[in-house]
């Protein structure tokens, strides 16, 4: 999946590819491995169709492509969900609700971003009401390419997320904790008065578990 040649395929410097993997090769003990295996095999996706991509989430969850073989089903409330799928572009009003839902989810939590609109703005790169790079406002774990991505590409995205969980890498929620002030500054700059209130992330500063 990662093309390493610089001449053809996707352009990424080799250094960025290893960013997620610790050089000291974190050894996961048996209990940690078991916990990681349990987490990766039962990912609950929050039921939130934030944009265009919701149209390809339906074939993914039903009989033709059947993501339930991988342990993926819908969860209606953020308190019971593990994965937030940002399916497509984000308008500013939706960004506020997505941030609230993300902060209400319990850790460990992951974000998968679908489509080219989340990567660099996509088709609406000059629109006044969409968010151009989601990574500045929420930590994204996996991007899936396409407009719309096929259900097979979505399955590859979930499998890649499962592999990341199995390797025990630092995920997006760790980044959110460490760089919370940077994320909040970006959100404040784009949302202005619509910013969600401060009490939603008080516990990040207190250091407690979500």
């Amino acid at each position, binding site marked *: *999946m*990662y093309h390493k040649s*610089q*001449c*053809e*395929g*996707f*352009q*990424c410097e080799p250094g*960025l*590819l290893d*960013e*997620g993997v610790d050089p000291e090769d974190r050894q996961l003990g048996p209990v940690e491995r078991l916990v990681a295996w349990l987490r990766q095999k039962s990912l609950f996706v929050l039921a939130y169709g934030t944009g265009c991509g919701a149209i390809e989430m339906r074939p993914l969850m039903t*009989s*033709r*492509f*059947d993501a339930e*073989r991988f342990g993926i089903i819908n969860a209606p409330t953020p308190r019971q969900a593990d994965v937030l799928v940002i399916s497509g572009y984000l308008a500013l009003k939706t960004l506020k609700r997505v941030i609230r839902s993300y902060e209400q989810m319990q850790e460990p939590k992951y974000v998968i971003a679908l489509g*080219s609109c989340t*990567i*660099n*703005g*996509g*088709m609406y*790169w000059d629109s006044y009401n969409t968010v151009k*790079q989601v*990574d500045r406002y929420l930590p*994204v*774990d*996996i*991007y*899936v*390419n*396409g*407009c719309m*991505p*096929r*259900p*097979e*590409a979505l*399955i*590859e*995205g979930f*499998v*890649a997320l499962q592999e*990341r969980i199995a390797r025990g890498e630092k995920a997006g929620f760790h980044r959110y904790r460490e760089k919370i002030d940077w994320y909040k500054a970006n959100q404040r700059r784009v949302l202005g008065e619509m910013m969600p209130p401060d009490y939603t992330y008080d516990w990040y500063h207190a250091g407690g578990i979500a």
Partner: protein
Amino acid sequence: MAWNLDIKGVLHPFSALKQGFKRPHTLNYPLEKRQDVPGYRGFHVNSLIGCVGCGNCQDICMNEAIDMIEPLAEINPKNASGLVPRIDYGRCCWCGLCADVCGPGSLRLAGDAIYVGPDADSFLYMPRDE
């Protein structure tokens, strides 16, 4: 509220149980893949021998997804500008206008469509040469 007995309405839904004996039509994705459909609008390919570096593709793309850059491989000696297109898959919408407007017909859309990655900067794509 009157209660009328609707025997048919109560018993007929159980006919759905006979689907349990049929073969499921689920596509077991990693083990079985769909056949490639000719004409599917997937990732780009660009034959560098044919590309003349005219920049029509960059001109028509309204998402500003195509940049003309210097290639690292052999190019067509008739290439006027010495540049070939590179496509930003964070902007592309796979409409195919760049392939339609390509004069020598070297930029085309092929069948490959799957790429995932954790890093947003890695989505700049140099079309395969074929």
